[in-house]
């Protein structure tokens, strides 16, 4: 193993901001083409509003690009273009669903313009974060505050009366009048900050003090506390919201970060056993959890396709209709699937863009996550490493849970597809997530003329050889 060149030797990496700009222009061309294809497909002509739409997107992403040039000039040049591509695909599909619904219901509200507003808010927070947070390590100081806020946000919908927290049967919301907000997206970021800072502090204890049981090195019982708390929290989410996806996401993130921090496979095994055991107990103890699983396993049986599994089954029909090449944008029937714009937008994309589009979109997510991991490997401080890895893993798990749910790999959940699904909380939170990744990648790629900070000094011994 060769030591990364960045350690101790200041080597200026090319900033590659020009490449980022060219990739952004490409993403904007895709956005324009997709929107035009949608209108051509549904209405037979292209509305002039395409120009406005592309102009707004162009301005927003150029602002983000300029912000990166100004405040994070060494950041990874592929991250923002990945986001732009996902936004292009997502907004085109939301517009397409608007048009599809408008065919039968001319007065129906349009979602695409509001989504654009949320993207603008997301970009604003993106810029704000880059400007206000020159060093991501500052976040480590607020670890416990973030953790507390995250837990409160996560559990708030369960504790609040369902009149405030329930929409379409899912108790994952907080509503103030006309505005609704899904706190789990923000909670995801806050908890990740907490996990990272907590694990950096506790690494020595969690990774070194072990006792051997056979080939395994298990932690001491009293060190199991944090993982048990995380487990209890996720089980609460599973049982109260019967949301296997969110439970999987939060607990998965925590266990993976624990593993990265300690390099102990035993944590993964403990996590796996705890989660599998807990989920099994929940299955047998709670009828509604059981029903979710039964609907998933027997989606096509009995009356389920007309009732409980209608959405899932119709989504699968959409994928099947799309086949390899898809029906073409604007030329399928994605609006058949209820609430297609949020949880089921991937089924709409699968129908109109086909397997080719599905694979392409998954590859964009994988690319974004891999750039995040690259940032994690490149950055020098443990907190940054853990945070970047956790953020990247969260993208992967979330996409897996959503796409896997829609495609019937796992039971369906209420999570959204980052940057693609309609929804303000999701879009804004994910812009903040990418802003953090951009910030950390900038730190990792920046020439190390910066003073080698306390993080390197307190680095874990294993890191040197990594």
């Amino acid at each position: 193993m060769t030591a990364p060149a960045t350690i101790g030797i200041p080597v200026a990496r090319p900033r590659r901001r020009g490449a980022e700009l060219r990739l952004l222009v490409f993403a904007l061309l895709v956005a324009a083409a997709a929107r035009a294809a949608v209108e051509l497909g549904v209405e037979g002509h292209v509305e002039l509003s395409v120009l406005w739409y592309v102009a707004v997107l162009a301005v927003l992403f150029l602002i983000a690009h300029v912000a990166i040039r100004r405040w994070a000039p060494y950041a990874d040049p592929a991250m923002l273009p990945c986001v732009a591509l996902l936004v292009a695909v997502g907004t085109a599909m939301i517009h397409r669903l608007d048009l599809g619904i408008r065919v039968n219901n001319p007065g129906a509200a349009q979602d695409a313009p509001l989504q654009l507003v949320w993207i603008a808010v997301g970009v604003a927070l993106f810029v704000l974060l880059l400007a206000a947070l020159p060093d991501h390590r500052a976040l480590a100081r607020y670890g416990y505050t973030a953790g507390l806020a995250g837990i409160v946000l996560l559990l708030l919908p369960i504790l609040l009366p369902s009149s405030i927290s329930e929409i379409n049967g899912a108790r994952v919301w907080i509503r103030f009048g006309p505005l609704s907000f899904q706190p789990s997206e923000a909670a995801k970021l806050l908890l990740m900050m907490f996990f990272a800072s907590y694990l950096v502090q506790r690494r020595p204890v969690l990774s070194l003090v072990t006792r051997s049981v056979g080939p395994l090195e298990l932690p001491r019982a009293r060190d199991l506390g944090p993982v048990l708390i995380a487990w209890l929290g996720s089980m609460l989410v599973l049982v109260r919201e019967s949301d296997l996806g969110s439970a999987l996401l939060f607990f998965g993130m925590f266990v993976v970060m624990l593993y990265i921090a300690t390099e102990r496979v035993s944590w993964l095994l403990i996590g796996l056993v705890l989660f599998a055991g807990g989920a099994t107990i929940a299955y047998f103890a709670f009828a509604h959890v059981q029903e979710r699983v039964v609907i998933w396993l027997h989606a096509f049986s009995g009356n389920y396709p007309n009732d409980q599994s209608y959405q899932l089954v119709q989504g699968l029909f959409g994928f099947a209709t799309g086949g390899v090449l898809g029906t073409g944008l604007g030329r399928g029937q994605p609006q058949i699937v209820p609430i297609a714009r949020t949880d089921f937008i991937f089924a709409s994309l699968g129908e109109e863009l086909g397997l080719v589009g599905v694979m392409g979109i998954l590859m964009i997510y994988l690319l974004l996550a891999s750039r995040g991991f690259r940032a994690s490997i490149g950055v020098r401080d443990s907190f940054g490493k853990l945070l970047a890895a956790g953020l990247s893993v969260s993208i992967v798990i979330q996409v897996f849970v959503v796409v896997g749910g829609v495609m019937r790999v796992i039971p369906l959940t209420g999570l959204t597809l980052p940057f693609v699904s309609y929804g303000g909380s999701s879009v804004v939170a994910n812009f903040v997530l990418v802003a953090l990744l951009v910030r950390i990648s900038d730190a990792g790629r920046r020439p190390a003329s910066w003073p080698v900070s306390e993080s390197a000094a307190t680095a874990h011994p294993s890191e040197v050889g990594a």
Partner: protein
Amino acid sequence: MNRPIRKVILFCALLFGVLLVNATVVQVVEAHSLTSNPHNGRVLIDRYERQRGDIIVDGRAVALSTPTNDALKYLRVYPGKGLFAHVTGFYSLFKATGIEQSEDGILSGSDSRISFSISRFGQLLAGQTPKGGNVTLTLDAKAQALAQQLMGTKRGAVVALDPRTGAILAMVSTPTFDPNPLTSHNSKQAEAAYNALAHQPDQPLLNRATAQLYPPGSTFKLIDTAAALSTGTYNPQSLLPSPNVITLPDTNGVTLQNYEGESCGGNPITMTQALTISCNTAYANLGLALGGDALKAQAEAFGFGRGVDDLGLPYVPSVFPDVNKPQTAQAAIGQYDVAATPLQMAMVAAAIANGGVEMTPYVVAEEQSPKLSVLSRTQPRVYAHPINATVAAEMTQMMENVVEHGTGTHAQIPGVAVAGKTGTADHGVNQKPDSWFVAFAPAQKPTVAIAVLVEDGGDEVNTTGGAVAAPIAQKIMSLLLQEKL
């Protein structure tokens, strides 16, 4: 910390690998079974996405699609209700029948000759309307309406052909059904309407003209006659033994007699006389003399045991079974297990009318593009040469006798020579026999051939079925002949 990060990256790639494999399974491997899943409404919506073409009779649409306000954009409507139902069939959420089924490619627009021009791309290029193509039928609307009216509440079928081309001018099967309730977009209502029809004992959904077999009774004597004359050893004046009763060979005294046990006015009588009065014993003897194989060969020369290409309607080939001697005698008078469709018997009449050249029957006249240009026009095709022209001429003369002073006098048309043959066929103990009439006119230059079958139409009072079926045939032929003038 970088080593576990790299392992986590591998794990993430694995998760995405699972998704990619699963996407391939859903979108490629299982795509077909998902598409044909009964819960899949998409296929249905696609089918109703563009306007289906019209089925046209005499310039008027008898099946057309009208815009709706529901998710399925067009409703299939049949303005003639039951009048054309057995030809057009119906196009429902669940199935299509008749021409709706056989011409679906044209009507839906999926046929390769029009699918491009009405695709979105084609519309951009040529400004085509996204509508399916039209199908015009050979039917004569007035003759069809008259046939329907004359059949009234009787069960049975009428098929009228142009013997020169095989074009079907009228095709009625009664009782008929109204296809409109079946095309309802409310699947429960449509299903209930269909089930009600499907369970009705008199089977209104059955096309009796093409898909139901009946014992042809005495109309089969035309095939005996054809077989006899074709041998060259018989002529219309050949004498046939015609006792009141014959005992069938190889049986312990099973007898065969004439209708109501009447005499045939002599013994022996000429073949012409035997056909004219429909003498069973004479034809049973003729059949025995010719042999079962000869009868079967002649029947198959007319089309028994054979399908009709491109008819576009459900079609059941007529049957002449392998027979022993006593069965041959019964088969010769159209009993035993001999069974024919009304269309087949109309084809027999048409073959005789057309000088022995049997034309392939067809009901689709033209296939048209959405812009009404003709994609294909059905060209008359020869179906078979069951008899030669001489035999045809002799048989025509004999059949004229039937109508002039035989069992078929009910079919006389003033000023027009009509050639015909009656039939009364027993089809079960204690059931009234079926009544047949097959004919063509004008006898010397035929432009219409017809077969009429009335189930249980034989009557105790009237001798032979000619009294029930022949007048129906007479009126329809009269109308068609007037129209041709």
